[in-house]
């Protein structure tokens, strides 16, 4: 419950943060809201030697209309995403998913960028961003690149982010103020999802994301395809777990998770119809 000793650097800007990470190398880590990193450090499952604190990099906390998409700064708190009127109008699904992350305290500290960078398949926002086909902007000393959400999440707690790269922005399509639903199934209000199903409507087509149904946040492509070819919601939802390799833990067996995915996807589709 006491982390191993580490050095602490506070970055005032994105450039400072990137420079600091470059200077300290492999064992340095960015600290954003700390909601995922600090528990790991307290259990000594993570032992970074340097923390570069980006939580106060204000120029990366924003939600703006960028014409064909909405741009969200990586350091934007869940709470700000949840309560954004711009998002409510232009991409309501992201706000409504953010509203179900953890509890109030967690949402006031945790950031959307931290959620993405942590790469946890059990987290809520990554599944929504995969369903939306969001784009992530990554920056390092050697420049900036963009990457699609589906390519970003590469494995269990693994992403395409290089050690010296800072995630600066999340770009989501203008999916509108309706046609979405998030079914989060958990034991307690503040818990991670045992399984979650998020549905959004982009350009008139249903997109379906799955929380905690594999090593990475997933898109239920079989369901999307079935719907596109005219299947009923009930029939389409039956393929919700196709191709998934969900984990087994205290709360759910593989079989139970697959069952939940089918029920939750059906309910999310019905609620967003």
């Amino acid at each position, binding site marked *: *419950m*006491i982390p*191993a*000793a580490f050095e602490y650097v506070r970055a005032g800007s994105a450039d400072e943060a990137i420079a600091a990470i470059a200077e300290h190398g492999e064992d340095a880590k960015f600290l954003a809201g700390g909601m995922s990193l600090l528990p790991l450090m307290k*259990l*000594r499952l993570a032992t970074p030697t340097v923390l570069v604190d980006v939580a106060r990099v204000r120029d990366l906390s924003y939600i703006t209309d960028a014409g064909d998409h909405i741009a969200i700064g990586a350091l934007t708190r869940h709470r700000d995403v949840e309560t954004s009127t711009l998002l409510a109008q232009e991409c309501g699904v992201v706000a409504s998913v953010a509203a179900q992350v953890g509890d109030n305290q967690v949402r006031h500290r945790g950031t959307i960028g931290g959620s993405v960078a942590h790469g946890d398949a059990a987290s809520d926002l990554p599944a929504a961003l995969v369903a939306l086909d969001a784009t992530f902007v990554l920056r390092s000393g050697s420049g900036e690149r963009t990457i699609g959400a589906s390519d970003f999440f590469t494995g269990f707690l693994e992403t395409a982010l290089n050690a010296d790269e800072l995630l600066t922005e999340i770009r989501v399509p203008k999916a509108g103020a309706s046609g979405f639903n998030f079914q989060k*199934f958990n*034991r*307690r*209000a*503040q*818990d991670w999802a*045992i399984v979650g199903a998020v549905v959004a409507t982009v350009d008139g087509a249903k997109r379906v994301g799955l929380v905690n149904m594999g090593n990475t946040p997933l898109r239920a492509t079989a369901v999307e395809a079935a719907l596109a070819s005219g299947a009923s919601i009930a029939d389409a939802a039956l393929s919700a777990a196709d191709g998934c390799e969900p984990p087994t833990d*205290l*709360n*759910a*067996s593989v079989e*139970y998770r697959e*069952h*939940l995915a089918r*029920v*939750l996807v059906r309910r999310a589709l019905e609620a967003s119809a």
Partner: protein
Amino acid sequence: MAVQGSILGNPVKRKEDAGILNGTTEYFDDLKIDGMLHIAFVRSTVAHANLGAIDTTDAEAMPGVVGVYTADNLEMPDVNGFIMLPPTMNRPPLAKGKVRFVGDIVAAVVANTKAEAVDAAETVIVDYDPLPVLVDMEASIADGAIAIHEGQPNNIAFGAAGMGMGAPVEGLMDEADVVVKGRFVNQRVAGVPMEPNGIIAIPEADGAMTAWIPTQGPHGQRGELAGVIGIDAEKLRVRAAAVGGGFGSKNTFHVEFGITAKAAIVLNRPVKWTETRSENMVSMVQGRGQIQYVELGLKRDGTITALRENVLGEAGAYPSLGAFLPFFTHTMACAVYNVPKLEFNWNAVLTNTTSIAAYRGAGRPEATQAIERILDMAAVELGIDPVDIRRKNLMPKFEAPGAPAGSGLAMYDTGDYAAPLDKALEAADYPALRAEQAKRRANNDVKQLGIGVSVYVEITAPAGLHIEYGKVEINEDGSANAYVGTSAHGQGHDTAFSMIVQELLGIPMDKVTLVQSDTALVPRGSGTAGSRSLQTAGSAVFRASEGVLETAKQIAANLLEANVDDIVLGDGGLQVAGVPSKLIGWGELASKAKASGIEGTADGLMHELDFDGQQSSFPFGSHIAVVEVDTETGKVELLRHIAVDDCGKILNPMLVRGQQHGGIAQGIAQALFEWVQYDEDGNPITANLMDYAIPSAAELPSFETYNTETPTHLNPLGAKGIGESGTIGSTPAVQNAVVDALQPFGVKNLDMPASSQRVWAAIQEARG
């Protein structure tokens, strides 16, 4: 006027809350002692092993380290976990030869800071030679299982036979038309007080010591700790600062106290241990853990003819009070029902797990669960409504003398079991609930309704804990001190006991100081446990106040040259009846006491005594739970919880409400959420608050709480205990409700907690 009607029975706000809420009240971890060192423990990561070499070389060289200890260089006697247990199962504070559960202590590191101690502890290298691991009671007692303690070859720590009980009853089921059988698991749960465990051990001059421990019972801790560190109890002062919850677990002596205090003596420096949450989940004693085989014999009309219970109670690796708790299950086995014949056998079983001891209810919730579950199963089998089968067997209203003895091990005091049942049914609108349930069943709704009923009686101030010390003394400024041998840790005793002094002496509550939780200031005491405090210590304060009043009247009569019989309470003191101008204030009465020469005034105006309630008291009540079960996902939602609890005469309804609410939440938690689990290798897999699911307000409805008031004759307050009723009445009501909702699927029983996966699996299985 001070004496305008009684303050007792009023919802007086808690005196202690301002400091707790604004942060000025000090808890154990707030205390900083000059020169204080910190200790960290190296705990076994293996559940059962022969202990090989312990390499502390690196740790000794780490920054800030002042001492590294193992059983080889810190001598202490092995600790007996419960007085009735043989020494074969005593626990060496620092493991010797073997480790027996994940969390057993192998070494201890003392350093200048907590972080240094933790860092150094990480470098201690321990060789383990693993042994077969037992985490399941039935595997522990199976033929050929390895003995966890030599000298206890069958892994039975204690049992009914050790108390001369448990024999089969000839022809037990002869009168029964039907015998209904069930196997129920009352799963292991953890107390998880918000404030974890700890100690600051401070060596004093002349080999004395002061120990700050967040405990429920400083006097009990003093006796145990003195024995382990080898000093006279008189030389050891145990104190508790404000204590952040206990739920029974903080009544137990933990070996960490001994190691910390011994290290403090060796180093001659204060040493502090503050438990982390991760440690708390493996070290602090846990609760429940029973497997119950229950058979109920009945006539076709639902009349009970006999009950048989065979109980395995988990003791853990080092048996503690938990090895005795099934005796309370036996004591309360017949509960509120006429049970003509009872056969009860039990054994406490060793496993490679954390020790089991008291946890809110301690043996009585398990008894209630067993009878309330089997009655519901009988109701289904016989086609009788669960309420009707209970009514048919309820003991009629009674008073002493002539009170029943339940299962024969304790004499009840007063009871009127139909009263809370009636009240709960009315508050719930039971017929309307059944109608709604029938509708949903007929419609085959996805969300089915379940209704669960429980009626309970429990035992408070149990096991001889009905005697308690109390003293009231008046200060020369007219304020009063009330001393008690109980030790509050959240209950609101400061408020309750001050109300009693105000009631009897007219001294305002805010001028009454409660003195507790310090062995130097309170000569003896049994602490706060078993819902005993108001009825014992509260009664002692009541009697001591009466004693003070009697003495003060004599002092006043002398000073006022009046007849003692004419002296009455006045505004702020005593006066001649009808003559308010002839009044002597409490301050003056106190200052004139010593010189008065009146008997008992040698130390001023005070009175002390040990109140004796003669026996335990038996609160009772009835709970009704209404759940909605999502039959597609298995998710259970508690819609309503109605509780009618009878704790005798109520002193402060607000304090009673608080105990009801907390207890109900904790009882529901066992029914729906909490479960301490181990994997087959004995690794705890619920050792943090992410995996160990304590519910929050978001998971619970607003409780509908009521009371009936059936006073006891055992004490002047007419009070019984309320601290544990919530966890006794609520758990079976909620569990019954879940099973009731699943009845259309043919589900007969479902073990707790009713997690969504379990409910879903039960439906799947029933559907075939």
